[in-house]
């Protein structure tokens, strides 16, 4: 047997392997998240939780497009208070939990973070980047100063590492990442979906009820890789890559660009929750075949000159 280890350390959070589900994918239900963990993920990420329950947008909320899907779920969630029991149940089942969360104001972000942190999560993922609720909440995450302020407010109350998830729908994502780092972020998740839309020629209407939605899946991958690459050049904190990871090769690309772990969302559609185990096994073979001992050995390798 080799000494090979797949375990990773993200800002003090130790995971058995570098994969998680992307926020909002299966994360609204405890038993489904447990299934994600059994499918091989290193930790699970909840649906983004807000201060009060939200039903989200009307259907159609999702449509497939070339190279991925567009979604405008509209952040449906049962509220952070409601989810406390789900988190405790998952923890009782031995599942490491990252709670994704959002608010409309800095105070709301802080309160929700406090609730979830007290519930015993292993990390928080601050979502200031959902493209589907801009009118209601404003794009807090599109601004460097805001990002710094909201991160700092959350860090004051958080007892766990705080990941800040960024939007690719900005001019300079590394600027925002720098703001998050200044605010005290323990890691950056890059990235959320790209804003897009789909129109039907027969109906002559936008397809999504919300008109615009977020693009995810393979079509997003080159953009997400670029985001990780630029952020890695700018900040010193760990990065979690997200966007279009479908197989081990995609995951390794993110690691080489500077990500310490990856989140997988849309690929669950085609490959099921088994996708986590498959990606992890692929990373293992890659490390083995190329003579590496652990995941850390390849993080950021593509930056070396």
């Amino acid at each position: 047997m080799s000494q090979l280890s797949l375990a990773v350390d993200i800002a003090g959070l130790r995971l058995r392997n570098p994969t998680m589900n992307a926020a909002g994918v299966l994360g609204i239900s405890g038993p489904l998240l447990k299934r994600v963990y059994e499918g091989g993920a290193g930790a699970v990420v909840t649906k983004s939780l807000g201060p009060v329950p939200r039903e989200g947008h009307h259907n159609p909320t999702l449509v497939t497009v070339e190279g991925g899907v567009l979604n405008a779920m509209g952040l449906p969630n049962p509220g952070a208070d409601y989810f406390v029991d789900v988190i405790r149940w998952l923890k009782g089942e031995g599942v490491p939990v990252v709670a994704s969360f959002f608010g409309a104001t800095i105070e709301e972000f802080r309160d929700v973070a406090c609730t979830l942190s007290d519930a015993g999560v292993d990390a928080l993922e601050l979502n200031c980047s959902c493209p589907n609720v801009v009118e209601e909440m404003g794009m807090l995450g599109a601004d460097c100063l805001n990002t710094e302020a909201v991160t700092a407010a959350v860090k004051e109350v958080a007892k766990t590492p705080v990941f800040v998830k960024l939007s690719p729908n900005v001019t300079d994502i590394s600027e925002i990442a720098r703001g998050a780092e200044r605010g005290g972020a323990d890691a950056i998740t890059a990235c959320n979906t790209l804003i897009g839309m789909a129109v039907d020629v027969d109906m002559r209407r936008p397809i999504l009820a919300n008109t615009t939605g977020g693009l995810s899946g393979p079509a997003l991958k080159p953009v997400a890789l670029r985001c990780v690459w630029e952020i890695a050049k700018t900040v010193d904190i760990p990065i979690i890559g997200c966007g279009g990871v479908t197989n081990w090769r995609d995951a390794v690309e993110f690691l080489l660009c500077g990500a310490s772990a990856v989140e997988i969302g849309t690929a669950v559609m085609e490959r099921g929750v088994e996708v986590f185990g498959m990606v992890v096994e692929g990373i293992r073979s890659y490390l083995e075949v190329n003579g590496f001992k652990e995941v850390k050995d390849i993080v950021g390798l593509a930056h070396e000159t």
Partner: protein
Amino acid sequence: MSGSRMKPDTLRVRQLVDVTEEAGDMVSLYFRDVQCSQALPGQYVMIWVPGVDEVPMSLSTIGRRKVSSVTVRPVGEATRYICDLKAGNMVGVRGPFGNGYTLECDLPLVVAGGVGAASLTPLAESLVTRGVRPTFVLGARNEEQLVFRERLKNLLDEGLVLATDDGSCGFKGFASDCALKLMDERQFDVVYTCGPELMMALIFRSAEDRGIQVQASLERYIKCAVGLCGSCAIGPYRVCKDGPVLTTDQLKVVRDEFGLQRMDPSGQAIKVDH
């Protein structure tokens, strides 16, 4: 886009070639679609009406001369709107989605409550094609509500058992009571059921006691339909992708939820009340 190489999850718009009134205010909408003509009994599609909604509907006809259908019971805004559509109107279609029923059985009992007959009628047709003759309980509140009565009578003749809550036709009482009586009188190896969840939960427990396998088609709140959002969860299963048909082994796993609770569109648990 059209043609058979298109993936079923791609949205396409189809013109309604026929719209027919069924028993009890229900309406069948017929459209031509290659993907639907290759569907399995028990699979469903998402029907999109712009500006209104997109809702899940079981295929009630699969590919008869390439024409498929859904059969809609008007219960709310979207379904009422759909029931008012006319031939020549267009709807968006995604799917077919989900697993469908498995056809392996020798002595099947089929129990349909109300619009549940929509997915079970193509099942009965497939079984007959395979040389298996099911006993089919068609239940409804009263005689006027018995959907697909002629179609099933022509297919099954003596195999069709009618049940009405008010006794206006056939067995007097709930379809589940009728099914229980049949399970006591005759031998069955599989029970297929679709209809009100409380009815299906009763049937599941009775069949379990008798060691009969169950395949029940469930409803949960469907948003994405492709297994991503989790809105349709029941226990560790996604009704949109792992279901809508759950088997005895799966129903045992979700015993604490089946017939008792479901998630509302925000993900909070609410009571199952019908």
